[in-house]
Structures are given as structure tokens and as C-alpha cells.
């Protein structure tokens, strides 16, 4: 009799302990999906500042956990592909500031990531194992947003003379800008190839498109602009000389927001 009581008591105690343990485990706060994704991103090498920035943005714009996880995972993908996170963070900030739905932002980010992969692949074909800086890659991808089709950009990159990626990035940017002001495509390519071939398309030529836009407003023919630019680039003369050849002063060229006043 005593033995049976002892056995029943033992079973009761064990059962109580099991139920209590299971209740305790359920009561523990489970790691949230955001926390887990942030931890994974951190382990993948995403900088703490980037993660903090992302979480602050999420809080500011009251994003739901699902959306935050999506963005964190995306940033992690960018990191693992060894791309610069900056432009993507910029796009997230821009989308949220413009009150774009998160689904659309995610789609645009995916498209942009695909653009980066595409341009990097084209550059690999051209330069082999030459190191591609984040800045140069971003500028070339940016030209796609400036109105150049992927195929056109790929053709331009592959046909362009020289191996200077910094100048090539500048050239692809100018290519898109000159297209926007409807400058002759053939002449554009000739100018840029002259600059790339002579290794003279330096930083001061970043402003070529603005000069061309103003020259066109003053009804200077495209071929005259192209001739002046090519002569300056061939002779490796300063950009100022090219402007002077067209008869411009800085005041003549001011357009859009007033800079420096």
C-alpha cells in the first residue's frame, strides 16, 4: 500500500515538473525576427553604423518588423556580394522620405542590385581582374538611371579605349547627361572616346554636360561643340580652354539653382 502511494506521488511530482518546465519555456520572450536578422547581418560583416541607421529609419517611419527584416536581409546580401552599401542605403532613405510603399522600395532595391551585378560583369569582361572601386561602379550604374539602356552602356564600356576605370565611369555619366540634352549620340561617343584614348578626361570634365547644355541653349551647333571639346582633349588642354573656345564666361553658363552666389 505504502509502495503504491510512493509510486503515485513520484509520478505526480514528475508530471508537475514537466508541465512547469514547458510553461516556463513558453513564457520566455522568444528572439524576435528583427533581432535575429540583425544578428545574422552583423555576423555577415554589415557595419554596426549601417544597422543602426537602418533601425533608426525603421523607427522613424514606423516600419513593421517584417519590413525591417526584409531591409536588413537585403543589406546583408549587398554586403556578401562585396558591393558598397551606401547607394542602397541612400535609396532606402529616399524611398521612405518620399513615402513609397516598402514593397516598391524592395523591388527598386532588387533592380538596383541587379544593375550593379550587370555592370560589374561587363567591367570584368573588359578589365579582367583589375580592381573596381565602389565609386566608379556606382557612377556607371547611375548612368543607367540617367536614361541609358543596359545594352548601350555595355557596348560603350566594351568599345571604349583605355583601361582607366575612373575616366570610364566619368564618361558613362557624361554619356547619359548628354543624351538628356539631346546632344548628337555619335559626336558624344567621339568626344568621350577621344578623352579616354588620350587619358585626358580628368575631373574638370565632370562639368562638360553643363557646358554643352548651355551651348545648345545658345544655339551653338553640336559639331562645333564637339570639335572644341575634342581639340582640347587631344591636346590635353584644361577644361577652361574648351569653355573659352566656345566663348563662355561662368555667368553665361549659370542655369538651374544659383551656385556660388
Amino acid at each position, binding site marked *: 500500500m505504502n509502495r503504491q502511494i510512493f509510486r503515485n506521488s513520484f509520478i505526480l511530482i514528475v508530471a508537475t515538473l514537466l508541465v512547469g518546465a514547458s510553461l516556463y519555456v513558453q513564457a520566455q520572450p522568444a528572439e524576435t525576427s528583427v533581432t535575429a536578422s540583425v544578428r545574422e547581418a552583423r555576423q555577415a560583416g554589415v557595419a554596426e553604423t549601417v544597422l543602426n541607421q537602418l533601425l533608426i529609419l525603421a523607427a522613424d517611419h514606423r516600419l513593421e518588423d517584417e519590413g525591417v527584416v526584409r531591409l536588413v536581409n537585403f543589406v546583408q546580401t549587398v554586403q556578401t556580394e562585396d558591393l558598397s552599401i551606401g547607394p542602397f542605403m541612400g535609396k532606402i532613405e529616399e524611398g521612405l522620405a518620399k513615402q513609397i510603399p516598402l514593397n516598391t522600395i524592395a523591388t527598386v532595391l532588387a533592380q538596383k542590385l541587379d544593375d550593379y551585378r550587370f555592370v560589374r560583369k561587363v567591367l570584368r569582361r573588359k578589365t579582367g581582374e583589375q580592381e573596381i572601386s565602389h565609386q566608379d561602379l556606382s557612377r556607371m550604374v547611375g548612368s543607367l538611371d540617367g536614361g541609358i539602356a543596359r545594352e548601350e552602356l555595355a557596348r560603350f564600356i566594351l568599345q571604349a579605349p583605355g583601361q582607366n576605370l575612373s575616366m570610364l565611369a566619368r564618361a558613362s555619366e557624361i554619356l547619359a547627361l548628354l543624351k538628356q540634352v539631346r546632344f548628337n549620340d555619335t559626336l558624344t561617343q567621339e568626344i568621350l572616346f577621344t578623352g579616354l584614348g588620350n587619358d585626358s578626361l580628368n575631373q574638370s570634365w565632370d562639368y562638360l554636360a553643363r557646358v554643352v547644355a548651355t551651348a545648345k541653349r545658345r544655339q551653338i551647333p553640336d559639331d562645333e561643340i564637339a570639335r572644341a571639346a575634342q581639340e582640347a582633349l587631344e591636346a590635353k588642354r584644361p577644361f577652361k580652354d574648351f569653355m573659352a573656345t566656345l566663348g563662355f564666361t561662368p555667368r553665361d*553658363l549659370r542655369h538651374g539653382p544659383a551656385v556660388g552666389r
Partner: protein
Amino acid sequence: MSRKKDPSVQHLRDSSAKLDNTVCEKDENQDLLALKRLIYRMPDREAPAGLAQSILSSLEPKTVPGWVRIYRWALRPRTVTFQPLKLVPAAMVLLLGLAIAFQFAPWRKDPGSMDPRQASLIPVTFTLSYPKAESVSLIGSFNQWNPAGHRMRQIGDLNTWVLELRLPEGRHEYAFLVDGKMVVPDQSSPFYQSDGFGNRNSVLFVSRDEPANI
């Protein structure tokens, strides 16, 4: 170490005790005279060696920690009297000292100078003509597309919105955010960039180099 009792002292004590017992019975003067006689009869002995030293050492003041002295000094009440007119020269000297210190203070900047970082920035004036707008903010790559703190102000006929900024050299993308929701590109800028969301961002080139400052 026990000291040997001096017999004369013992005797004096005994006498004193006796006197105590008889003080009520005898005249006070007589007691005193008896005591005096006893003292006179005491042998004239030399004081033990080291007695003076031990007495002096016991009289030496105890050393008190500095902070206790300061504390006591601070607690001690004082009375201050002053004549306001006599404070004028001191006040003048103090003011002069402060003025000199402020003039040569390391944190003080030349009024004409500017923060080096600010000085490297280039002033840019953005304008937008948008008559129906309630509010317009400037968003762009230079402010992380954050409209906070970049609200434009109305001028003239109240149709034109203006904002002056100082921007670093380079290429910047921007747009106007009208009434906090509508994205409007700058029509005066010939260059643009698709933002991927169905809008266009305007593109601005900022350069310090005068010929390129276009």
C-alpha cells in the same frame, strides 16, 4: 610597572583623611594651619628623572588632519562688513580681466572667419515656383532625403519658394517635396536621374572652380 609609594605622601594622605574626619569639629583655620605645617615638614626631595619630560609630552597638542581644520574653519561663524563704494575698484579689475580673457579666449572666433568645414562649402540657392503649395521642403542626396530642417520659405508674390544652402563640391540629386507628399523635380535643371519609384530627381553640379561654376 608599579611605583613605590612615597611614605611622606602617604602620611599626607592619612593626615588629610584625619582632617576630613575632624573638619566638622574643628575650626577651619586650625585645619589649614595644621596642613601647612605638615607640608613644611615634608622632606625636600628631587623630582624623579623624566618627570618634567613626561608632563610636557602629555601637554603637547594633538595633531589634527588638515581637512578637519579646514572643516572647523569653515564652520566657524564670521561677520563680514563692507562698504559698497570700496568694492568698485575690485569690480573694475574683475571686469577688465574678464574682458581680456574673453578677447583672447581660444574658443573665440574672428567674427569674419568661418568654420573651415563650412568655408569649404559653396552657397546654393534653390527656387521653386509653385503657387498652390502649402509647404515645400528640399530633399536630396545632401540631406539624406530628409525634409526636416530644409523647409523652403515663400518670397515676393508668395508663389516662389526659396532655400539657401551650403553644399560640398560635386554632383547632387535633389527634388522638392510639396505639402509633404508630392515629389516635384526642379524644372530649371536640365539634368535628371530616374529615382526608380516613378519620379525624377534633378541633378546639380556644384564646383568651387570658377570656370566650372555653372
